[in-house]
C-alpha cells in the first residue's frame, strides 16, 4: 500500500458510494445497490462491509484488515430511471471486481457514465404520444380516444419539461400536470375529438402514475427490505392520490 493509503481507501469508498448512488437514481433495486457496493469494497481489500440502503440514503461502513474502520453516508434526493446508465454501472462494478483499477481510473469511468447521451427531446415527445395513445386503447378506448390521448401526451411532455425546470416541488409538478391533463381531455371532448374521457385520461395517467413504484415497493417488502418498501408504498399512494385529484378537478 502507498503512503497515502488512507486517502486511497477513503477515496475508494467515495467512488463505491458514487456508483451506488447513481445506480439507485437510475432505478437499481435496493438489494442490487447493496450487493454492488459490498462487492466493490471487498475488491478494494475490505474485510468487512456493512451497507444499509433505503431509497433516500446509503450508509456504508468498511472495515480494513489493519483495523481501520471508515464510514460514509450519502443522501439520495430524487430518482430518474435510466436503464442505460444502470447497465453501464453494472459493467463498471464488474470491471472493478475483476481488474481492481485505481481510484482515478474509476472516477474517469464514472464521469463517462454521467455524460451518456439521453434521447432527444423530439424522440421523447413522440414516445409520450405513443405511450398515451397505446394505453388509452389498451384500457378499451377507441382510435379517436387514442389519438386525443396521444396529442395530450405531447402537450404534457412540454408542460412537464417546463415544470421540471421551474417548479421546486416534484409533488406540485405532478399535480399541475394532472390538472392540465384533465382540463385538456375535457377541451378535446368539447372540440369533438374522442368519446370516452376516462379512456383519454387513463392514457395520460399511465405516464404519471407511480405504478412501477407501487409494484417495486411490494417486491421490496416481500424480499425483506421493509423500510424501503413502506417508504415507496407511502410515496406511491400519496402521489397517485394527487394525480386522481388533479385529473378530477375539472369535474368539480
Amino acid at each position, binding site marked *: 500500500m502507498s503512503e497515502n493509503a488512507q486517502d486511497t481507501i477513503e477515496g475508494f469508498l467515495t467512488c463505491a458510494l458514487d456508483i451506488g448512488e447513481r445506480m439507485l437514481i437510475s432505478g437499481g*433495486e435496493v438489494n442490487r445497490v447493496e450487493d454492488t457496493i459490498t462487492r466493490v469494497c471487498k475488491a478494494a481489500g475490505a474485510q468487512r462491509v456493512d451497507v444499509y440502503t433505503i431509497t433516500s440514503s446509503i450508509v456504508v461502513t468498511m472495515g480494513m484488515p489493519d483495523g481501520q474502520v471508515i464510514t460514509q453516508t450519502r443522501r439520495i434526493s430524487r430518482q430518474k430511471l435510466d*436503464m442505460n446508465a444502470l447497465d453501464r454501472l453494472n459493467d463498471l462494478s464488474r470491471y472493478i471486481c475483476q481488474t481492481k483499477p485505481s481510484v482515478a481510473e474509476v472516477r474517469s469511468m464514472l464521469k463517462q457514465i454521467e455524460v451518456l447521451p439521453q434521447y432527444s427531446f423530439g424522440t421523447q415527445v413522440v414516445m409520450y404520444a405513443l*405511450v398515451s395513445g397505446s394505453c388509452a386503447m*389498451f384500457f378499451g378506448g377507441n382510435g379517436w380516444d387514442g389519438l386525443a390521448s396521444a396529442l395530450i401526451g405531447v402537450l404534457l411532455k412540454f408542460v412537464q419539461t417546463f415544470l421540471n425546470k421551474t417548479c421546486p416541488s416534484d409533488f406540485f409538478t405532478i399535480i399541475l400536470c394532472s390538472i392540465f391533463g384533465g382540463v385538456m381531455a375535457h377541451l378535446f371532448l368539447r372540440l369533438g375529438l374522442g368519446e370516452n374521457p376516462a379512456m383519454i385520461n*387513463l392514457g395520460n395517467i399511465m405516464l404519471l402514475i407511480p405504478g412501477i413504484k407501487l409494484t417495486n415497493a411490494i*417486491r421490496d417488502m416481500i424480499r425483506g427490505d421493509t423500510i424501503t418498501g413502506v417508504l415507496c408504498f407511502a410515496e406511491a399512494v400519496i402521489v397517485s392520490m394527487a394525480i386522481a385529484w388533479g385529473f378530477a378537478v375539472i369535474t368539480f
Partner: protein
Amino acid sequence: MERILIQLITAFTSSLGFAYIFNVKGKRIFYDGIGGFLAWGVQLLAAAFLTNEALCYLLGSAALTAYAEGMARWQKCPTTLFIVAGSIPLIPGGALYRTMSYGISRDWQAFFNQGLETLLLAVAISAGILIVMVLDQIWHNARALSRKRKAQA
C-alpha cells in the same frame, strides 16, 4: 377477438415507448416491447382458463421474469432492464387511479374494494417476479455446488 388483438399490439407499443422513456438503448428497446407483449399474452391466456385474476397476473409477471432472466444472461446486463418496461401492461396503474378517484369522490365502499383489488394485483405481480428470481437463484447455486463437488472429486 379484436379486443385481444388491440390489447396485444398496444401492450407491445406501450412497453416499447416506456423503454425509450427509461433510456433503454439499441435492440433492447425491441426486446422490451416483446416482453410487454409476452407478459400480457400469458395473462390473457391464463385468463381463458382461470377465473382468479390475481393468479393470471402472477403467471404473466412470472413469464416476463423468466424471459428477462434469459435476456439478461444473453445480453449481459441487469434483469431490471427487461422487467421495468416489460411489466407496463401488467402494472395496475389504471386500478390505482380508479381507487384514488373513488377516494376523491368519497365513495368509501368502492374505494376499499378497488383498493384491495389494486393491492392484490400489485402483490401478485411482485410475487410472480420474485418466485422466478428465487427459483433462478436456486438453480444457479445448485449448479455451482455440483460443479464444486465434481472439482473436488
